[in-house]
């Protein structure tokens, strides 16, 4: 195991906010290593620090203590713009509230990460065709010109999935991806996400309090009060 390079390495990670003049520790002493192509679920009750941990792992915020290394890159050595560039190249996101850009069509939304990178080709295709094929893969080939407001919640999340995979990320972070969807739709979206993850050989880090969704993960990390309560390896 140790011979393999870890895709995510968090060491003694902690985060403290100041709230009403009082320091509020949200995360304390988290050590977490994730191997490539793993499917990890972070679970825990509201306020346990799940989202904060996800944010820190993805480099969306700076930790108060400790370090995060993604794919061999120590994030604390990067500026915010440097971390942005790193995300553009190696990271994908799926959000609870989808966060599609409302002023762009489905296709344009999928193109955004590639355009941020300034890429001309992706997946061996010109970026537009690549984006179209991704939308086809999530079953939305005929809704490409639609705006988010014209799509249902499940459709919006599928566009978000296509967008998340468009830059062929090494790591996909998902924050309650089914939180705003009904059970059936949510199940379909998760099926699709797991399939895509397997095909693209991406590492998937998922935050959820949906136990059935967590059950599909190879590994479940349970947080409570900002600390790791349990870390259960692959069910196998």
């Amino acid at each position, binding site marked *: 195991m140790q011979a393999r390079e870890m895709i995510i390495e968090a060491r003694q990670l902690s985060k403290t906010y100041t709230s009403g003049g009082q320091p509020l520790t949200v995360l304390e002493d988290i050590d977490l290593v994730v191997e490539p192509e793993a499917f990890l679920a972070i679970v825990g009750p509201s306020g346990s620090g799940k*989202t904060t941990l*996800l*944010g820190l792992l*993805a480099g*969306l*915020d700076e930790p108060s203590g400790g370090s995060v290394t993604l794919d061999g890159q120590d994030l604390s050595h990067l500026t*915010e*713009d440097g971390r*942005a*560039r*790193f*995300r*553009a*190249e190696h*990271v994908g*996101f799926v*959000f609870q509230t989808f*966060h*599609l*850009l*409302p*002023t*762009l069509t489905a296709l*344009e939304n999928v193109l*955004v*990460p590639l*355009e*941020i*990178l*300034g890429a001309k080709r992706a997946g061996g295709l010109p970026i537009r065709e690549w984006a179209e094929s991704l939308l086809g893969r999530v079953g939305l080939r005929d809704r490409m010109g639609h705006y*988010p*407001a014209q799509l249902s919640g499940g459709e919006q999340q599928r566009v978000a999935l296509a*967008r998340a995979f468009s*830059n062929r990320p090494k790591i996909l972070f998902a*924050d309650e991806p089914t939180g705003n969807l009904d059970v059936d739709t949510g199940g379909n979206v998760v099926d699709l996400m797991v399939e895509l993850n397997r095909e693209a050989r991406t590492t998937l880090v998922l935050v959820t309090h949906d136990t059935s969704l967590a059950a599909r993960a190879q590994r479940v990390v349970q947080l409570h009060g900002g600390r790791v309560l349990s870390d259960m390896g692959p069910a196998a």
Partner: protein
Amino acid sequence: MNLRFALRLAAREARSTTRRLAVYMLSIVLGVGALVAVHSFRVDVTRSIQQESRRLLGADLRFTSSRPFPDSVMALVDSLSKMPGGEESRVTTLLSMAFAPANGATRLVQVRAVEGAFPLYGQVRSDPADAWSELGRPGRAVVDPAVLIQLEVGTGDTLSVGLARVEIVGTVADVPTDLAFQTAIGPRVFVSASDLQRSGLLSTGSLVRHQLFLRVPGEVDVETFLDERRGLLRAQRVGAVTAQDYAEDLASGLEVLGRFLALVGLGALLLGGVGVASAVHVFVKEKLTAVAVLRCLGAGQAGVFSAYLLQAGGLGLIGSILGVLLGIGVQRMLPVVLADYLPVPVAPFPNLAAILAGLGTGLWVALAFSLDPLMTVRDVTPLHALRREFEPERSRLDPVRLGVWTVLVLSILFLSVWQAPRPMVGLAFAGALAVTLAVLGLVATLLIRASRRFLPGAASYAVRQGFANLFRPRNQTVAVVLALGFGVFVVATVFLVEGSLLQGLSFETGEQRSNLLLFDIQEDQTTGVRDQLIQGGAEGVELTPIVPARIASLKGRRVEELLADSVARGPERWAVRRQYRNTFRGHLADTEEIVRGSWWDEGPSPVSGGERPARISVESELAEDLDVEVGDRIGWDVQGVEIETVVASIRRVDWNRFAPNFFVVFEEGALEEAPRSYVALAHAGTEEQRARVQRDLVRAFPNVSVLDLTLVQETVDVILSRVSRAVRAMAAFSLVAGVLVLIGSLATSRFQRMRESALLRTLGAERTLIVRILLTEYVALGALAATGGLLLAGISSWLLVRFLFDFDFALRAPGLLAIWAGAGVLTLAAGVLNSRGVLGRPPLVVLRDATE
């Protein structure tokens, strides 16, 4: 930074941005259009005037004097006109009564005696066409059409001017050398020089102007020729102007006017800028999540910032291009619309400099005003996508923001000074703008605070909710108050200043005020004229002696010496050179007030013992121009006799009140020997009475001129109404710009409003309740913005009237109330227009549309 990404994102986002911000673009369009039109038109006019300069002057060189030209000047004229290719003509102008023997009608006219081929360049158009050439023969007159109308005579009728009788052979349609307003005192009667001699008016008449027009042979350089002889001309008090100088003078007058108009355009543009800032502010707040998502996806700070800056710039550019097109359109229309007011026909040419300046200014205003609100984009962290409650922190003294504000303030200062006729005017404009906007901004802030604190809990729900809307997040209260308040401010200021000026300038002819002014009454005619006036039913007859004089020496220095000295700073040239009409009397008039020194009967003379010079009292502003104080000596040339005087007092004179006012008053006894004429003021009740008095007077005393002040009042009214029409148009322009920003501000909050009212309706609110809430909000906004604008207008117009125009301030309350109500109605209309979709759609649709 990835510019391609920024450009592409900007282009895609623009699809929705354009619709949202289009109204603001309109105010940029309007402002840029005004700037381009005003500047291009100014250049067109200047160019046309330059091209037509000889035709406008009627000569290459023109001499003007209030006395017949002395021999030394005539020798100079001859040296040019006698050369091959040289030519001269003369026009002598004076005011006199014209009398129609056929029906006894009389009217004060400008008599112009023409000698030689006038004008030397261009042509006088007359009806019939050959009438003008008849003037060479004695006994003929060509007149303004107004003469025929006012005296009820026609072509072929006879006219008496002084002792001469002339036959009207036609009317003038266009005299290229005369500007439109020059006929305001009285219509023109052109006669031959010999008829003027026969009239006998030259010896008794006043306000005579001698003009000599010269065609100069091509080989003579007029400027050099003139420069070598300026000293002589100045000493002889002869004015000289070349066609080139004349054109430049005319053009520079129009240039100043043009630049004032440009400031109005700039005002509209800056108001548009405020609108842009407010819209971008709201726009950015709505985009915070999208920005955070983009950051999560790996977009850099600079990339996202520039994507939104590009959108603002793109809109500014489109607005500016449309503005340029509008400006070019207006530029083409102006020569047609203003044909009557322009001295020359003006051909419009596209002006590249004006177009580029307009484009640049519009784009810059759009960018500079969106910079500050766009700074927020910079502060968004990607975490905002995960945590909605997260608000970006802003440090109070961010150096970048400080830099942005410096850029903004400097840009406004630069643009103002650049567009203004003088740097000081530009600074004053920028300062006034800043004060106005600051006060209105303060009013808006206070309004928000007050509505939050003092709103009675007992008020109905609709009223409370309506007021609460004023301080809801992303409210447009400040922008609306600024825009509407500014519009109301400009309109009300113009309204108040205009009203005060009109009131001050009216002669109140209904009352026992003088409405007849008689002048050129000779010493031996005073008793006769007085009797005649009283017999004719005139009242309040008052005769005042007038002694024409020139200054011969000032504080011991000869005037010739002063005038020839072009280097030293000292008295103003015009004040030294002019012909004075002085009087003498023992009492101080109602319209006068001693500022320094003392009147004759109080206090000692500033000079005692020996041969005492006569005492005089000098008007305060003239004293400044002449640079004299109490105790200084002035020598007067009273028709050849020199009289030494000493300044005993400085007086302030209320020139706005119609009375025989004078620059210089002599003490009694000093001028009794001097040749003099008299002016008389009298009041005659009815129009018929005035006509009879004039007719009888002119029959008995043909040299006496009578001015019917009611006619002058009419002329003044006509001129004022032209001016006020132009000023009102400018004010209306500001109001339109303000209303555009108002509509834009309300449109910006439309989606939020739709969402709120959908929510209220979901919760069971009836449509009437929602209407009442909206009405409360709009009425409160409109009323308070208008109140702020009116208060500011009251203060600024009072200052202008009292200190700039020196008039009494007239508060026109009913009109102000109408403006106030109008502003309320405008806001309400804009609000209703903006809410039209809010009530019509089912709440579910609105809620679904409004999410994200």
